[in-house]
């Protein structure tokens, strides 16, 4: 029964969030809570020569200052510091481990005091002398030639270089995506509660409590039962909370040192010392035959990583899913610089790589004098090129059609600068989006009580994506209960297994875990009901029994039903508890992807270069949409991110100091309300019986992919200027 799945159900955690009752990591109280404030390095590379905390320690209320030379023990093997999403290559960053400085903004001391303001004040009294390493580098473009190739997922096909060189129409260019920071609204924070005897309860801002749990146990040599990690509400993360961040180490370190509860909250500025979307130079080459079909695709990405870990994502291979081409070559190079290790940021790899690919496709369309959609349809790929596989489902063609229709694309005059609205040039651009439909093993537990209430629990996080709500919807439908009777507990490391929430995999993964547990409940109830005296379900095959409207009922025959409450009373069951780990069957016979077609309208003041994004249509094919309300919000949010990526976002570094110069959210611009106008989200129907039982693919990333390119292409159409260096700020249009 689908009373809830697929509907526009309001968030079940809505009331908590609009009343201020929802508590985030830095908001949990504890007796005797102490507060830590981080002292951060002001050089990019070198050593701490001297760290003088004597004045700090004189401040009334200061409890201790932890440094590399004064702290409890920390694990000394890299393996202990590798969390479940750490890069394979490298040595993870260890806060307060030794005297080495690896990046500007690195934590070098933690001042712990009775209250936060005292700690913050006392931190100003820490005196640091550095032994500065003069040879440091933070500029990707200056160091581009040092890029070292990393292993590629995608094998080359044909002879791309030759095909590109010989193509009758060819486009090749560099696109530059700057460093970006996630800037979730919630500041990173951890409250580590000292429970006595070395046992700790850790409230952390994270996308994966069990990842943090395992990490803390290994870093601090603790047994699993000694530490419990929770993050019931997460104020946005977008990838920044996938890996355990240093504040969780520091809060826990301080709690162990002081044997009391400690909170460590980072400032906005300090959060620029965490991970980031790496600056990347994307070089894309496209060669086409005279009819516009692609003959060659080359894509080489050169991205930043840190000196101590090799972080890379799939920037370049997306053409394998999008466009047929007999010849292709992809490569990814890393340049090691004196910065913190980059990390996943919404649609990592794809947001940058597809942006470049889709801008390049637009340039090729111009060169071929073809409509951009027509160009894409000429090389539309019904099979994943890389492994030559069919898709479990792919309604991208329909995305183009529906999106174009809603946008009014057919009324577009293809000539640049041909459309106007008074003093503004009007530009219409489009691009394709693609992401993976991933799914992971997740377990869920359902406790059904005789009063017709069910509690569903799982260690997964809800970072704003709506996991609480879809879990409640799926459980309500599977158990035949009103959604008000479902309570959901998430993000506690003691709950059934879940990986980090990321990659758009949690909706499908958690939903099927709930289905699995509910199925076991159903079977037990069916058995129980059929054995009741004079049961109306007597003789009914258990497979034919469903849970609906609070009853155990023969499918299609509501007359033959027993109330769940009666059955449980008969069985003398106060509660029925089932836990199930859902493993998706491995199926390498098909490719699994989500797709989108994005259409953007910009209006650009002809004289002043001011750009307004007046309309965006995003047509998304992502299997079944579990909740059209929260799902629409996710896509809309992705579009807003895409607008930011296209026009606003850039972490500005002064390479002379190796220091970020806009570590705030006044000058690191993200869109504000006035920047955002009409966003039309269309969910294209995409039935997928193969991918999983519900046909769910996930929505977290696909919303951003394609948007920056659609806007850049619209800016070109409006102005005739092709800006390949993001963000497209107005100065780039003034020449």
């Amino acid at each position, binding site marked *: 029964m689908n009373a809830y799945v697929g509907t526009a159900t309001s968030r079940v955690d809505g009331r908590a969030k609009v009343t201020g009752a929802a508590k985030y990591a830095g908001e949990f109280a504890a007796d005797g809570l102490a507060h830590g404030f981080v002292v951060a390095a002001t050089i990019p590379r070198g050593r701490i020569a001297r760290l003088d905390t004597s004045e700090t320690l004189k401040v009334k209320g200061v409890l201790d200052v932890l440094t590399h030379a004064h702290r409890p023990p920390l694990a000394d093997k890299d393996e202990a510091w590798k969390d479940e999403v750490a890069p394979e290559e490298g040595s993870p960053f260890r806060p307060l481990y030794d005297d080495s400085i690896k990046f500007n903004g690195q934590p070098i001391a933690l001042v712990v005091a009775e209250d936060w303001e005292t700690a913050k*004040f006392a931190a100003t009294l820490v005196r640091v002398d550095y032994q500065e390493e003069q040879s440091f580098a933070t500029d990707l473009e200056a160091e581009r030639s040092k890029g070292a190739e990393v292993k590629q997922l995608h094998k080359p096909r044909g002879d791309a270089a030759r095909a590109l060189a010989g193509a009758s129409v060819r486009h090749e260019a560099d696109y530059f995506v700057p460093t970006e920071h996630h800037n979730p609204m919630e500041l990173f924070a951890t409250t580590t509660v000292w429970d006595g005897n070395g046992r700790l309860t850790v409230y952390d801002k994270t996308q994966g409590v069990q990842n943090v749990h395992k990490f803390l146990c290994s870093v601090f040599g603790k047994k699993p039962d000694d530490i419990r990690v929770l993050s019931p509400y997460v104020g946005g993360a977008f990838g920044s909370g996938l890996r355990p961040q240093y504040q969780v180490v520091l809060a826990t370190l301080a709690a162990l040192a002081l044997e009391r509860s400690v909170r460590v909250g980072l400032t906005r500025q300090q959060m620029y010392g965490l991970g980031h979307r790496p600056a990347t130079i994307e070089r894309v080459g496209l060669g086409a035959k005279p009819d516009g079909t692609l003959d060659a695709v080359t894509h080489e990405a050169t991205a930043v990583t840190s000196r101590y870990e090799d972080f890379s994502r799939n920037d370049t291979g997306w053409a394998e899913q999008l466009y047929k081409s007999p010849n292709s070559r992809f490569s990814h190079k890393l340049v090691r610089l004196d910065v913190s290790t980059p990390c996943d940021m919404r649609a990592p790899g794809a947001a940058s790589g597809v942006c470049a690919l889709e801008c390049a496709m637009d340039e090729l369309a111009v060169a071929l004098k073809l409509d951009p959609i027509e160009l894409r349809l000429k090389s539309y790929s019904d099979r994943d090129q890389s492994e030559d596989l069919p898709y479990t489902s792919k309604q991208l063609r329909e995305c183009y059609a529906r999106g174009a229709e809603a946008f009014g694309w057919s009324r577009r005059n293809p000539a640049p600068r041909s459309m106007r609205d*008074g003093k503004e040039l009007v530009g219409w651009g489009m691009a394709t989006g693609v992401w993976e439909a991933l799914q992971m093993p997740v377990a869920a537990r359902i406790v059904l009580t005789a009063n017709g209430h069910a509690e569903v629990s799982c260690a997964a996080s809800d970072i704003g994506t709506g996991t609480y709500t879809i879990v409640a919807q799926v459980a309500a439908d599977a158990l035949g209960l009103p959604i008000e009777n479902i309570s959901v507990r998430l993000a506690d490391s003691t709950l059934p297994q879940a990986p980090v929430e990321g990659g758009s995999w949690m909706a499908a993964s958690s939903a099927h875990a709930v289905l699995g547990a509910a199925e076991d409940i159903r079977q037990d109830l069916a058995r129980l009901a059929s054995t009741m005296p004079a049961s109306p379900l007597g003789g009914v095959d258990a497979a034919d029994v469903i849970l609906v409207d609070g009853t155990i009922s023969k499918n299609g025959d509501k007359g033959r039903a027993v109330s769940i409450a009666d059955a449980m009373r008969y069985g003398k069951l106060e509660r029925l508890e089932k836990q199930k780990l859902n493993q998706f069957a491995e199926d390498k016979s098909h490719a699994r992807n989500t797709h989108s077609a994005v259409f953007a309208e910009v209006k650009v003041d002809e004289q*002043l270069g001011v750009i307004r994004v007046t309309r965006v249509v995003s047509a998304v094919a992502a299997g079944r949409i579990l909740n059209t309300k929260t799902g629409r919000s996710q896509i809309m949010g992705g579009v807003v991110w895409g607008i930011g990526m296209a026009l606003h976002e850039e972490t500005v570094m002064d390479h*002379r*100091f190796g*220091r970020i*110069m806009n570590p705030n959210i006044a000058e690191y611009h993200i869109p*504000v309300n006035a920047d955002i106008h009409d966003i039309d989200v269309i969910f294209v129907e995409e039935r997928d019986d193969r991918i999983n039982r519900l046909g769910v693919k996930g929505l977290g990333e696909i919303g951003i992919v394609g948007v920056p390119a659609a806007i850049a292409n619209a800016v070109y159409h409006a102005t005739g200027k092709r800006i390949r260096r993001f963000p497209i700020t107005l100065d780039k249009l003034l020449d």
Partner: protein
Amino acid sequence: MINFQYSRATDVADAILLLAAHPGAKLIAGGTNLIDLMKENVEQPSRLIDISRLPLRKIEETADGGLRIGALVPNSDLAYHPLVEQRYPLLASAILAGASAQLRNMASVGGNLMQRTRCAYFYDTATPCNKQTPGSGCSAIDGRNRNHAILGTSASCIATNPSDMSVALAALGALVHIAGPSGERAMALTDFHRLPGDTPHIDTDLGTGEIITAIELPPRGFAHNYSYLKIRDRLSYAFALVSVAAALELEGDTISEARVALGGVAHKPWRSLEAETALRGQAATTDRFSRAADLLLRGATASSHNRFKIELARRAIVRTLTQAASATPQSQAHKKIA
């Protein structure tokens, strides 16, 4: 934030006495800029003297038909005051172009005049800055200077003044009323802010121990032909790359009086009497506006990343004057540029 003491002044005289008694003290009203800078350890006052309760919140008509605005009037109250909306809409518009509704509710008129630059090196205690530590050097000149000054710069500093309100006040010919240990005085707003020269750490000519008590607007409000145009990197809640306050009086098509002030381009709101003189008595045409723009931008010099601001300012001046002349002032809510 460093350890500072707190006093609350009971009246203006008390504030002046407290300032005299506590070297290193600073006045605080709305706090929107000062607290921000204190949290960055850029400002380190030994004591804050709270003047927020002083009786400086009135907006009164002056005998000559102008307006006297108490220094503690919140920015939003000033912007939405009926007399300001009717008679000085340029000022209302400029205020509403700045910051956010919350900040405008907090920020005082006097504090707005005192706000400091957004130069990233000034804000970062880890990088040299002559404004922060005189003699330490200017990191911006060869650094990240995309939003730095193009006019009135010096070898010591290329920072800009970030205020929008001050730009309109400069155009309107406002006076700043000041009280201090040696009595009261008034000065033109255009003289209040300084160019950096070799003392970039001194933003204004407000003397030690002095307090701004009021802003006075002359009777002429340019309520018919005005516009405030702010160009920035997003459509709201961002500091200006360039802003222009334009105010005209027209007799038919002829300009009888003209005022143009620029924001985001210098260490102070930038006016050119020569440019305004060149407009007076002339027809309100694009050519004349271009000529005025040339005069306003005479001597403009670019740094490595802000060359675009010269051309942007030129175009913005022409556009804003065109808006003023045609009585189609820029709306701060509707983002299409008129």
